[in-house]
């Protein structure tokens, strides 16, 4: 799943393949993670994992680790 999430981040934020994604990374650590990048992230996550995120879940997408935890929980549901 880590690789999938890294792929989603790279696509949403228009990052190069070589850009390393780590769980501890937050808004300030990832170029392009502004409001539009955040919306692209939500759309890519929903499309890639076939899920729907509610408002509270979207609020919680504030780091790579948080994204991974939410996706893991949604996938287990």
């Amino acid at each position, binding site marked *: 799943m880590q690789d999938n999430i890294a792929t989603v981040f790279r696509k949403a934020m228009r990052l190069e393949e070589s850009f390393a994604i780590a769980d501890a990374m937050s808004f300030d650590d990832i*170029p*392009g993670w502004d409001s539009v990048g955040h919306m692209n992230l939500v759309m890519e996550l929903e499309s890639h994992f076939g899920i729907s995120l509610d408002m509270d879940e*979207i609020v919680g997408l504030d780091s790579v680790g948080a994204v991974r935890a939410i996706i893991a929980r949604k996938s287990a549901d």
Partner: protein
Amino acid sequence: MSAWIALGRCVQLLPEKVRTEADRPVEMPVEPLVEPLLAHADAFPDCPSLRTSAGMISYGTLARMVRGAAAKIRRVLIHRGERVLLCGPNSPELVAAYFAVHAAGGVAVLLDADITSESARWIAEDSEARLALCERELDLPISVANLAAWCRADEGEQLASLQCSLEDPADLIYTTGTTGRKKGVLLSHANVAYAALNINAFLDTRCDDLECVPLPLSHSFGLGRLRCMAQAGHCLLLLPGMRNPALVLKLLLNARATGLALVPAGFDLILRMTKDHLGDAREHLRYIEIGSAAMPLETKRRLMELLPQTRICHHYGLTEASRAAFIEYHADRDHLASIGRPSPNVEMAVRDGEGHDFPDSQEGEIVVRGRMVMREYWKQPELTRQVLSGGWLRTGDRGYRDAEGYYYLTGRQSDLVNIGGRKVSPEEVEQALCGHPAVVESACVGIPDPQGIVGECLKACVVLRSEVRDEQLVEWLRQRVEEYKIPRVWQRVEKIAKTASGKIQRHLM
């Protein structure tokens, strides 16, 4: 004592006649905004002025921060009117620093929190600033101090008397010029105080309002909300920005905010990410101010449905003439495609290139006049003469007025692109792109945002000498320009269409 608190109670600072006769010119005494702010603080020290994730700051505490920082700044400034750069994210310290510069007799020059070092250096040199107060390290050729450290509410020296008057310069705001070179808009204390008066009159801001502000205070729109607070005495819920739009809405709902200021792209993001949850604010959200860009009609109608009781006020304005016109969606529901009518105390007209007024329905250049119109462009007298005459400002926007006095925009007279409310010069991005080893030349043009969020975005056409991926060009630009300026659409072309004199023919792209 300030005229604004003559009522002697923290109930309503704006006199009734200002609020109820908004369509007619209103003669009101105004003062440099720091005066009513401090007077309000002295009279009602426990009233909340700012709320952040860290807690509430009272007007009394804010006043101590302002007077303390002003005393420090005063010791550095040699003359009144010297420029002080301020750079930091939204915070009580940035708010205090802004008013402290005014109190000390300086001119505030606000920089985007994420400004590149190159741009900051250029502004420092062009403005001939004496001092910079920054939250992050910037390599500048002037004295730099830590903004937060200078603006704490400590027991240090407090400035005893204000060093500014209405006709003194207050703010120098750099905007994007048509050639890519920034231009400084110099505003006097009278300009910003009258702008606040006009805005408060239209919005009907009350001192018990709690207003959610996710806008950067370094931008004209966000700064305008801060100025209005100084005059109306209400409380701002300061948010760090719109990076997480759903969080903005959640905080607004949790706080039961009565006001909200946001650009159209912000509403679009909130509506897309949270569906109809904005409607959950209908019981407490009294007013909204929208600005800096146009909003699609569909979004306007959606807001009206979700918030049937909220005054939804959309302004038209420029840094040079803050909030020249307003429309309130519900009251003006039959004119939603317009930018509204002139704000209180503001005149507007449509003219030809020679300065003659056009009759209704005839398209020309929109001009505005009022006490909020800028004093001049900094160190650019020729440019000032080109746009200012007899108190009238040429906006560079084309449009017309209908028989009922509503104004409609039909286009711009420049190549500037409005990306989510921020003006971008294509030339600046082209220059940055052309430094890339693989790029021979490039041309950028504004196109409708394919995602429909930020209104316009940049499309870049590039002539390459070697293969390069879009992501590599994006990464190159990230080192050189702000994120929002980076093109969203890329096209490889054989050559750039130009006129005989070498000017890029953007309309052909």
